[in-house]
Structure formats: structure tokens, C-alpha cells
């Protein structure tokens, strides 16, 4: 199965954990696309950079548009006001790292 890796940043006044971001995206996915849609996404947290406030999520390629829409629809994470921005999307972790390094995100 083809996968996509998303580097996402959390923008909030309070500290946010990767697990909270994952749960928030999962909940949004279930709200917007139902359990059937959420099951197609196969969402997982791959990397958690707390200092730089960015995280790497993995999803199936087929569900990427759903995951992006769910991420964009978030206005709070674990009842803390927050915005999640997708920084980069890539097919491999290596390419994602390259892209984020070139964009001075790491």
C-alpha cells in the first residue's frame, strides 16, 4: 500500500503533544468522513519534534485529501485553541526530511 508522510506544525499558545495532534486529526476525520473514511486513512504518528512544534504523520495515499481536509478543519487540539498547518507532504521519510531541511523547518 502506498503511503504519504505529512510534516505538520501545531500553532498554539499552550504546549501540544504529538499524540494530541494525532487524536485531534483522527476525531476530525471521523466527524467529517465517518468511521469508513477514517479506517481508510491508516493514520499514525511517526515523529514528534516537541521543540520545533512539528510532527510527522503517516497516512495512506488514497486518503491524503481526506486527511488534509480534516487537518485544516481543526481549530482546537485537546480543548486547547490550536491550528494545524501541513508544511510538506512526501512519499518517503527521507524526501520529507530533505524538503523540510531545504525549507529551514528543522
Amino acid at each position, binding site marked *: 500500500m502506498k503511503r504519504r508522510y505529512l510534516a505538520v506544525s501545531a500553532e498554539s499558545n499552550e504546549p501540544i503533544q504529538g499524540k494530541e495532534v494525532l487524536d485531534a486529526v483522527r476525531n476530525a476525520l471521523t466527524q467529517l468522513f465517518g468511521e469508513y473514511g477514517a479506517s481508510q486513512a491508516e493514520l499514525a504518528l511517526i515523529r514528534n519534534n516537541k521543540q520545533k512544534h512539528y510532527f510527522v504523520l503517516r497516512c495512506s495515499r488514497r486518503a491524503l485529501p481526506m486527511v488534509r481536509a480534516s487537518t485544516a*478543519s481543526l481549530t482546537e487540539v485537546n480543548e486547547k485553541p490550536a*491550528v494545524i*498547518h501541513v508544511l510538506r507532504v512526501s512519499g518517503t521519510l527521507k524526501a520529507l526530511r530533505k524538503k523540510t531541511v531545504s525549507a529551514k523547518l528543522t
Partner: protein
Amino acid sequence: MRRFADLHLKPSLEDLGQVRRMITKSAELGFQMVGLSLPSKIGIGEVGRLGKICGDAGVELISRVDLAPRGRRELLNDLRRLRRRFEIVNVYCTSKIVARQAAKDRRVDLLSFPVAKFPKVFFDRAEAELASSALACLEIDMQPLLSLRGFARIRLLSVLRREVAVAKRLKVPIVFSSGATDTRFLRKPQDFASLGMLFDVGLPLALDALSETPLMIVERNRQKLSPDYVASGVRVVRRRDCCLSG
């Protein structure tokens, strides 16, 4: 590379700090042009100040006025008074009479519809036909989509899906705007575009709704507002002193 425009930011203009924050954030997120919803009685000095804030952030300011007339006559008066003062004119259609007049008037650039009036849908086939021939676009604000929850959002998505289907069928251009009152409701253009899938707007069309279509409207109106504009397809190329006048 695509240029993106967010035609609808709605910060409180009394709080210049917030205006600055929102404009800077829009620039950071990848927009090159931002439209600020301005009061109809705004002075040139104030527009200049806002233009400077935009210039500092690296984005272009688009002046925009939102009209919410109660009747046909009020709309026509507002258009007569304000059309040449703003680059974008949006009409918020709260009744069918206003919606019909706005859709057939070529001075109107954007049509927006209340989300709370369900099941009254003013953007129907007849409305779309008028809008299509008058070059008006359907504007969809994203803030309600982000702020509403539960059944209210389901209802909104249902209305948007119906409006988009009519717009697509009759080739009415669609414009996506943030409609944001706060930085919490600002997203990257690609993220706004991805939200389009919730009401059946595919990614290519959604990206056009954030770049090609708004840029086309702005360019067209800037041409019309320039002193060289004479009529559609006719403009002054060069001015010379008249040889007969001496």
C-alpha cells in the same frame, strides 16, 4: 508558480494590531494578495495606512466593500455611490429580490449567501444563469466551515454542495475566501483547497478558486478603475495635445 489571493479578511479595523497580525499571517501562509472588507465611508488616508501595512508584510492590498442591502433600490444606490471607490464589490444577498438584482448587475463582482437561512437557497438555476452572463462569481467563505460544529455544519455542507453543483452546471466561477475575523481561521491556500472536497469541489477547481478566479477579477477591475479605461476592450494607449486646440 501560482499566486494566491484571499479576497475576504474581516479584522476589526479599529484594532490595527490585529489587522497587522492577520495580514502578516496571510503573507506567511502563502497569499500574495489580501482583500480587506472596508467600511463604505473609509477615507483615502486610512486605506493608505492599510496599504502600507500590507506592503510591509509583502502582500498587495485589495480594497473591498460588502453590501447588504434590504431592497433593490438600496442596492442600486449603493452600487452607484461605491462602485468606483473599491476594487471588489460583494453583495450579501439576504432576499431573493436582492439576489436577482445583484446577479444581473455587471458592477457586482461577488455574490455571497447567508448560511443561516436554510432551507431557503437563493443561489438556484435562474440566479446562476443571471450571474453567469453578468460575470459575477459565487463566493464561499471558509470561516463558518471551521467554526460550526455538528448539525449546523452538516446543514452548511449540504447548502454549499447544492450551490456548487448549480455553479458548476452553469459555469459560474467560484471564489474561496477565508472570511476570517481572527488568525485562528487562516489556513494555507492548499489547506483551504482541500476543504473544497467536503462540498464536491475537486482540487484543481479549488486551487483556481483561490488563485486564477480572484486574480482575474482584481485585474479586470483595476483596468476598469484606471483613468485609461474607456469601455470594454477600449482603452487609451497614448495621450497627446490636440493639434486643433492651438
